[in-house]
């Protein structure tokens, strides 16, 4: 129970960073914290106390394996997270080249 609450707190810390910072890099950092907390939450749900890693070896009781389905889903999500973060960072590089600043309040003159 307490790990779920701590996971939620990590999500809120990321949300705070996402909404209150002016710096684009800080916004990307806050977004990645939210991502991390969701990954951890999904893997925590699938954990079984005393379970083994989901790798089948002859001679091990098959009932005591942690749920492999959330792990497979999170594996997909991590790779997609890398792709979105690369997009965000390249946008940040372009914005810095054009406006000489990471400040989101100076990007109001964006046109076209």
């Amino acid at each position: 129970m307490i790990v779920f609450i701590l996971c939620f707190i990590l999500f809120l810390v990321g949300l705070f960073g996402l909404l209150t910072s002016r710096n684009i890099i800080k916004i990307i950092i806050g977004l990645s914290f939210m991502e991390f907390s969701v990954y951890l939450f999904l893997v925590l749900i699938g954990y079984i106390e005393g379970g083994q890693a989901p790798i089948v070896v002859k001679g091990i009781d098959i009932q005591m394996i942690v749920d492999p389905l959330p792990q497979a889903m999170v594996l997909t999500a991590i790779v997609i997270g890398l792709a979105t973060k690369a997009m965000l960072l390249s946008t940040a590089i372009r914005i810095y080249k054009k406006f000489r600043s990471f400040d989101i309040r100076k990007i109001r003159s964006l046109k076209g």
Partner: protein
Amino acid sequence: MELTLSVLLLFMIIGAIYALFAEDLLSALISCGIVGYGLVICFLLLKAPDLAIVQIVVETLTLIIMVAVVLDSTRHDLREKVVIHEKGNSYINAKYVFNVLTVLVLALFFLFFFNQAIYKLEAFGEHTTRMATAYIEQGAEKTGSANLVTGIIFDFRGYDTLGEATILFTAVVGVLTILRLKGHK
């Protein structure tokens, strides 16, 4: 088990809070690494070795890219202050207060759904596999893979992986387009 994870998560939360309030962007990125690599240890403790390997690679890659971006531009962070002192008189920063209030409202909104979800779930460590039972029982025979996670990703849910590959390709094309030096005037 739960205690170990809680201590790790507390450590990660402290790192996350430091990352958001650091003056130097480089130290903020390094504390972002605390959270990412703490997640790797959490995955190892939760018996998810595939996730730990992928997360280590992804975290190292993102950290290197972000450090390259920051070293190439500026390390100085733009801090928001609650009270602004300007030309002798001081007043409250209304935009910052509004942002913090928005965070509080959203936090209450998410807390409602978190509360709803947490009572539907089993307690930590007492999960019962419903959908994955068939995968666990027949996965090794049907896919021929000893690792059930890769068996699920590439066999039972192969179309998901195809979509993931499409997203990766789109992201690479997008990055190349955004970073292209030549362009229309």
